[in-house]
């Protein structure tokens, strides 16, 4: 916490929050665009119902406003690490299926993947500023996905992107909450309670 009290740490935190908010906003906009392209390219129905993706925490949460900052950061970090893995898998499957036929979708997927990675980095930095240890990636990472059929891959991809869009919205809200001055940091004791 001492580091968080220093002016430079506060500035750094504010900058990370600000940048993270904008990154999450852009990521959501890009994911929405990507969803449209993905549905069209994969021949899916945009209104198709997709089951929850395994390994990804749900963006929707009860008592969101009661969460501590650390809890928010840790949940976000766990979610985006899962998205990073899933998106990398999607990108690999995309290349296997289409090769270089649809480079635009692949580039868009790669761009979203980069943004997810960048956002995860932001979250890690914020956790460092909170003087919190960063959980190991292997511990929190999703289990290796079972071998799925092509259609199931497409549906899973659609589900991943939809959940990512949801998480992007939530992340903006979480970071805005974190970016608030003292009252937000006043929830610091909550951080201690988090595992």
């Amino acid at each position: 916490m001492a580091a968080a009290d220093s002016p430079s740490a506060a500035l750094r935190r504010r900058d990370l929050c600000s940048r993270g908010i904008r990154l999450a906003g852009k990521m959501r906009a890009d994911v929405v665009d990507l969803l449209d392209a993905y549905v069209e390219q994969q021949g899916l129905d945009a209104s198709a119902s997709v089951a929850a993706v395994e390994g990804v925490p749900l963006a929707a949460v009860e008592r969101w406003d009661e969460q501590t900052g650390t809890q928010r950061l840790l949940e976000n970090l766990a979610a985006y690490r899962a998205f990073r893995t899933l998106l990398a898998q999607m990108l690999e499957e995309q290349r296997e299926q289409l090769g270089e036929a649809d480079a635009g979708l692949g580039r868009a997927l790669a761009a979203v993947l980069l943004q997810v990675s960048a956002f995860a980095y932001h979250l890690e930095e914020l956790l460092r500023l909170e003087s919190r240890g960063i959980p190991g990636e292997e511990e929190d990472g999703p289990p290796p996905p079972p071998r799925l059929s092509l259609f199931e891959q497409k549906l899973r991809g659609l589900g991943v992107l939809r959940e990512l869009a949801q998480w992007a919205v939530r992340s903006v809200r979480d970071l805005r909450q974190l970016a608030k001055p003292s009252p937000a940091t006043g929830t610091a004791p909550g951080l201690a309670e988090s595992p």
Partner: protein
Amino acid sequence: MFSRWNWVACGFYLVLSICSPDASGGLVQSCGHIIPESPVLALGSNFTALCILNESCLDFGNIYASQIIWKIKNRLVPKEQYREINRTVSSVTFNDTSSLATPLTCNILADGQIEQNIYGITVTVGLPPEKPKNLSCVVHQKSRLTYVMTCTWNPGRHTFLDTEFKLRHSWPEEIFPDCIPKDVNNSCTISDIQFFVNTEIWVEAANALGKAESDPLVVDPVDIVKPLSPQNVSVSSGVLPTGLKLSWENWISDTVMTLKFNIRYRIAGDMNWMEVPSEDTASPRTSFSVQGLRPYTKYVFSIRCMKEDGVGYWSDWSEEKTGITTEDQPSKGPPIWRIIDASHSPASWTVHLMWKALKPFEANGVILQYEVTVRDKSSLSSPLKKYNVTSTNHTLQLPNGTYEVTVIARNSVGASPPSVLLIPASNSKAPVKNLRTVPKHDKLWVGWTAPNSYVLKYVIEWCLVSSSSDCIIEWQIALGDVQGIDLKGIKPFKCYLITVYPLYADGQGSGESVKAYLKQDRPSKGPTVQTKKVGKAEAVLTWNHLTVEEQNGFIRNYTILYKTIDGNETVVTVDPSKTEYTLSSLTSDTLYTVRMMASTDNGSRTGPDFTFTTQKFGKGEIEAIVVPVCLAFLLIVLLGVLFCFNKRDLIKKHIWPIVPDPSKSNIAQWSPQVPAKHNFNSKDQMYPEGSFTDVSVVEIEADDKKSFSEQDLKPFDLLKKEKSTSEGHSSGIGGSSCMSSPRQSVSDSDEGETTQNTSSTVQYSTVVLNGYRDQTPVQVFSRSESTQPLLDSEERSEDHAGGADSTAQRQQYFRQNGGQDETNTDRPCFERTKQITHANEGDLVGFVQLQISGQSSQPLGLGMEKNTQEAALSNVLQTCTEGQTVRPETVEENPLSVDEMPKSYLPQTVRQGGYMPQ
């Protein structure tokens, strides 16, 4: 002998060992090699190479390291740089690699100075890369979703080596692929840029000599974005005539960045841009209404954007879009002025009303017409007169009076405020004071001091002064609170007449004028000077003023320069208002050259030279000389006349001797019976004997009349004989008739003086023809002496003489005469004498008479010829009878009978047929 064969074998081996394929590897078996192999060296460093010989070559070829020589590109390396390490290794050292070149070869100098190459290497010299500097990156937006980042840097010095530059960027947990520049070494473009993450960017440069890395640039690419300019810009008219609405699209997503804008606009045709205040457009938007514009004006708009927080770069300006504001009613009335022409009739005016078209920003639309209203202020009952005019002038015929003229401009929206002009009966108000002009670049500033009264406006009139055309008036109105305006469109070197009228609320002030030039030059020509009057010591010069077109400025003065041919030039400065000047103190009778120079503030120009010559005498000098001379002459003449008058008797005696009129001569009636009529008596009285100093008397005794022709030569024979004593004294008739002048006869005479006296003076001579040897003189004849040549008369006389009595005798005479003329030209005296003596007595009388009568046909020359002939005859006689005494009485003793003598000189011989005028 052995040694020689040994060396030949050695050389052969070397060639074989170099050229023949190796039995094992199939490659060239070299006798040695160089270490290092093809090095890359830093420029300026030192370098050592080793040449190592193979042992096999030592054994067979007897070659050792001491025989090694080094060469750089066929240039021998100095042996001071060699070092023999052992018998197979030689080294060479270079302290500065800049002296190195490719190839560096190791050679063997065998016996017999045969040089063989052992090995060679390529040496590359260069520099390690410098640290790249000034790295900067810009993210360019290429489309809605596409961004590329272009970074540039300073690669540093040239390395002379292949140097690879890499642009690298990374996140803390991820390193991205390198960007390798193509064809350049100072920039590279990275695609797939991700925003909102701090990215570390740096440049690596590497070559064979080293590697360098720039300072890293850590930046969020979103902070270095240069977005695309707003697209699809459009301009639309708003409700207000002073506003236009600008709309556009932003091509960058709000999720990436929010934008702020710059809007600039200008009036079409004007190059100066105006900008909407930046704080008005500092928030994200896609439209903006620009206010404060002029009605009915075409505007050009352009817009640009950048990240709202100002971090990053402005986009380029968008394409220009135009829009026109709507019309509004004219903002002001047209400036109005008038020219009053009262020359036709003093009771009425011709008023030329003129107004200026409103400027576009004043007209606020298209002016459809002007409404002119004229109100007679002197008569309240007179109705208003209205005129609708589409031009900018109107001419009115008005009686002399005071009028109020109003002009309104009207467009489709409405009418302008009225412009009012008061036309008074006279300009009696106070004028402006201290009117002056100052040139300012291409404008002429006109300033004045306001009168004491309040002035509504000022009207400034100006026109180009010309000697060939009328002044075309231009005018301008200035507000009453200004005291100077700039006149535009003024040409340099031209004279302008500027007049300023103050307009008061109740009338108009009189105009104040000034002439001005925007820029002056020297005159285009000089004045032509000439003289109006030239005297002995002064000359009045006159010239004409230069025309206003020739002046090119204000003529400050004239300068007269005059000089004599060899004298110094004198300079006189003359006031420019004068056209005449008198030069004084000139030298008389001297040629002067004068020229004239006109000067403005900016230079002078000289006119043509003019020359004149001063007079020799001044005015009255000639009169002062001539009048006294004339008076003196007249006085002398008068005195002479008086003297002559007093001495008239004496003068008359010398000048006009009494010459008897031959017509009244007694000879005509001469007869022995009337000797009393002969006036010899009087002569005797006038010239008593002894006082006749210049009269000769010749007595010739006439022989028998019939034998005269034969015997009359005798006395001349005597004369011939006497000529021995009197030779040179011959003169008189003979001389005169033979010679053409008395002077020539004088030349024949030895006694020139006497002859001259007798020829130059009128004498009276008496010829007495006595009878020859006591015979009765045939004739006494007296006549005056003359210098008239007698040749013609004598010839005529001879003709007559011949014709009077005997043709035969005359023919004989002519024969003799002709022969004598041909043979005795040197004896004129005797010839003449013969002619005379050939005639008989009657012939002689006839001769004389005919001679006179023949001359009587020439009345004007009568006297002179008579005198000359008489003088000549007397001379002859005098000469030939020198020493004889002449007595007048003898005349009376031998009178001729009246019947024998002709009574007059009338040409009786003509009647006789003996004389014809020749």
